[in-house]
C-alpha cells in the first residue's frame, strides 16, 4: 500500500512542482516523498523511480497520442532512436525514473539516519 501511495505522491508532487520549477523538480519531489513515506531503501528507489516514470512516461505518451507522433518520430531520428516514438517515450520515462529513484533512495537513507 505504502509503495503505491509513494508512487502516486511522487508523480503528483513532481507534476505540481513542475508548474513553477524546472525539470529537476522531480528529484526534490521524490526525495521529499521518500522522507515522508518511509520505506526500505530498495522499495523507496523503486517507488520513486516508478513515480518519475509514471509522470514522464504517462505525460509523454498522452502528448504524443494527441500529436499523432508528428514530432516524436522526428526527434527519435535526431537522437537517434530509429525513429521510434515508443523508444523515445521509454527513454523519457527511464531518465525520470533514474533521477527520481536515486533521489528517493537518498530520502530513505536520510530518514533511517535519524
Amino acid at each position, binding site marked *: 500500500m505504502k509503495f503505491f501511495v509513494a508512487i502516486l505522491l511522487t508523480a503528483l508532487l513532481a507534476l505540481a512542482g513542475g508548474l513553477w520549477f*524546472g525539470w*529537476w523538480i522531480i528529484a526534490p519531489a521524490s526525495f521529499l516523498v521518500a522522507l515522508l513515506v518511509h520505506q526500505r531503501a530498495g522499495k523507496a528507489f523503486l517507488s520513486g523511480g516508478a513515480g518519475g516514470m509514471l509522470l514522464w512516461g504517462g505525460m509523454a505518451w498522452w*502528448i504524443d497520442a494527441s500529436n499523432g507522433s508528428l*514530432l516524436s518520430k522526428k526527434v527519435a531520428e535526431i537522437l537517434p532512436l530509429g525513429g521510434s516514438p515508443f523508444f523515445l517515450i521509454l527513454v523519457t520515462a527511464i531518465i525520470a525514473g533514474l533521477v527520481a529513484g536515486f533521489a528517493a533512495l*537518498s530520502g530513505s537513507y536520510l530518514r533511517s539516519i535519524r
Partner: protein
Amino acid sequence: MRIIPFVVSTVITAGLVFALNKHWGIIPPMGKFLSPQHGFWQNAEASDYDYSADLTFPALKGKAEVYLDERLIPHIFADNDEDLYFLQGYIHAKFRLFQMDVQTKAAEGRACEIAGSKAMEWDRSQRRLGMRFAAENAVKEMEKDPVSKALYTAYTNGVNAYIHSLKESELPFEYKLLDIKPEEWSNLRTALLLKMMAKQLSSGTERDIAYTNAKKIFTPADFNAAYPQVPDSLLPIVPKGTLFDPASIVPVKPADADSLYFEKKDSMALTEPDRPDKNNGSNNWVVAGSKTQSGSPILCNDPHLELSLPSIWFEMQLSTPTSSAYGVSLPGSPFIIIGFNDNIAWGVTNAQRDVKDYYEIKFKNDSRQEYWYKGQWQRTERRRETIKVKDGETVYDTIAYTVFGPVMYDKSFTVPGNDKALAVRWVAHDQSNEGFTFYKLNRAKNYDDYLDAIKTFSCPGQNFVFASKTGDIALWQQGKFPARWQGQGLYVMPGENDNYSWQGFIPQEQNPHAKNPERGFLESANQRPVDSAYPYFIPGTYITPRSVAIEHFLSTMSNITPADMMKLQNNYFSTLAEDARPVLLKYVNESALNSDAKRYLDIVRNWNLEADPASKGQTVYQCWWDSLETMIWSDELSKSDPVSPLPEEQTTVELLLKDSSSLKFIDNINTPAIETLGELVTGALNKASADLVKKEKEGRLEWAKFKEPAIYHLIKDLQPLARKGLNMGGNGTIINAVTKSHGPSWRMIVHLTETTEAYGVYPAGQNGNPGSRFYDSFVDTWVKGEYYKLWMMKSGEEGDKRVKWTMKFNRVDSQ
C-alpha cells in the same frame, strides 16, 4: 551507519541532475529536453490545438484582432499602423522566432554562437563584408523619418512582447535542442535581415576577383566571348527597340586604365567563401487586359531562393481602417513584401546587377593601420570584431576600413599567404530605407503611388512588376546603380587614389522601365534589363533562358486566365536544350559510341524537351551537356589558379550555334592533336554514359530521382526535419526553376478583377514548429503545382467558416 549510502546516493542524484541539465557537444541536455512539462514534448502540438487567445499589451494604442484561418494565415485588423506592425512582429515571433533569431545572428556574423567553431569562416566573412556596418547605416536612415522610426519600433516591440511572454516550456523546439536562448529584437536586427537579403541578391552578382584571374589567361576578345555583356538570345525587360535618352552622367575612364587596369595581368590567390547561389533569381510577368479573358490584368511572381523549412516567407493579411494588404512577409521585417491590396498588385525579381567592386589596397605594414591613398599614408579605421564561439574560445578579428569600405580580404583572410588586400565598395553599405518602399506599396492605389514607393529603393536592385485595377501594367528595374565607364568594375581596381571610384549613380528616372507596352505583357526573369542601346555600362550575372521561354509563351497566348498562368509558372520546357540539341545530334558520331551511349542518344533524340520529373531525356541531356562543357572549357579555365569561372550554359550554346566547328575553345590545348567538335560531343556522351549506367542501375534515370530535390531545415544537419525526395523537375534555366534545394519560394497569381482573384502557395507551412501540422502543410500542394485561393478578408466576415481561431489584443484588461 546509513550516512555513507545517503551521501553516495545524493551525490549520484546531484550528478545525474547536473549531467542531464547541460548539453554535451551535440547531445541536448537530456533531462531538460525530454521533460514532458518543459522540454520538446511541449512543442508537440495537439492536432486540435486551439490558437485562440485574449491578450493585453500596454504598448497598444487601440484594440485589435487576429483571425487565423484554416491554413493558419493570420488576418490582422488593427486600429492604426503602429498597432498593425506591433501585431505583425508579435505574430512573426509567435510562429517563426527561431528563424528570425538565427538568420539575423548569421547575418551579423554570429553563427558560431549557435553552431560552434565550424561556422568561423562564415562569421569572419560576414563581418569582413561589413554586414553590421551596412545595417547600422540602414538604421540611421530608417530612424531619420519619425513615421518610419515609429513603425519599425512598433514591430520590434511586438517581437519583444512575444519573447518576454515566453515560458521555458514555450520556447521553440530548436532552442531546446541546441540549449540556447532567444535574444531581444531591435531595429538593427530588422536591418540585418534586410541586409542579408541584399547580400543574397546583390553580393554574388559580380565576379571581380574571378574575372581578374580569367583576364590573365584570356585575350580580351576571348574574354568577351566567354563572358559576354549582351547575349545573342537576350530578350530584355524593356522591349527591344525602345529608345533611351542619352546618359545624363557620362563617367570618364581614367587615363591610365589600359596599363593599370585592362591590360594588367594579375592573379588573386583568393577563395571567396559562401558566394550566394547564382540562381537566386526569379520570374515575374504581367499581362494587360488586352490579353486576358476577363479584360483585367493578371500579375504573376515566383521568387527563386534557397528553399527551407521554415520558409523565408510568411503569408498574412495586414489591415487597418485605411489600408489592406495581403501577401508574403519576411519574418524579421514589417510589411508585405510581395502581394496585393484592393487596388494594385506587385512582385519582384532580382536585377542581378553588379553593385559591388573591389579595390586593391596598399598597406604600410602588417598592422594595417595606414594605407597609401592620394599620395600619402592615410589612417584606416579599425573595427575589432569579437566572435563568440559556442563551447569554444572567443576569436578576435580586426578589420580595416578604408575610404572605399572594409578590407574584406587580406593576409589573414581567406587563404594564408595571400598578399593582396582588397577593400569592398558595395551599394548595400550606403544609407537607405528599403523597407519603407513596401510600406508605401502596401498602400499604393495607382501607378503614381507605385512609382513614388519604389523610387527610393536602392539595394538589392529589383524588378518591380506592377498592375492596377485601372488597367495599367508596368515593370521598373529599380535600385541605386553606379554609373560606370565601359569596363569599370569588371575586375579588381587600383585603390591608390580615387581615379577608379564610382563617379556617380544612374539617375533614378533613367533606370530601365516599361509601362503599358503595345504587346500587352511585360516580364522579367533575371535577364539583362535592356539591349545594347541603353546608354550605360551595366555588368551583372544575368540569366537569359527563362525570359526567352516566358516571352515565347506569353507572346503567343491570348484570352489568358489565371489557370493558364498557373500552368506557365509550372512549365518545364527547356529552351536551352531546344537550341543545343540540334548541335549535339549533328556532331555526334554514332559509330564511335558504346552500346549504352547509343541507347542514351536515342533517349535524347526522342525527348520532348520537357524537364519534367519523369523525364529521362532531361537527365541524359544534362549529363551529356555538362560533360561537353567540361571538355570544351576546363583546359583553358584551369590555366588560372583558382580556376576561372565556367561560362554560362547559354554562352556556350550561343558560341556553338554561331561557330560550331571552328570555335577555338574546342581544341584541348593540353594535347598536341587538334580536337574537333565531333570528337568532343561523342566523347562527352561516352563519358556521361558511364555515370548514367550507374544511376540507371539505382533506378535514378528519371530527372526527379536523379536530382533528388529536397527542402532542408534551416539547420541542414537536422535531416529528419527536412522534406526529401520531392517529385519535382526543372532547373535554374527553366521557368519552373527547381534545382536541388532551390527554386520558386512563393508562387503568386493576382487577377485584378473588381473583386481581386488571387492564388498562391509556398513550399513549407506557416508554423515554424516541427511539432505542428502546419510545419510543412503546403509542401505537397506546391509539389503538385497546385495553388490556394488567397482570401483578402473584409471586416464583417469574422463569422466566415474559414476563420478557425481568433486572437484578441487589448491595451488594458477588458474585464
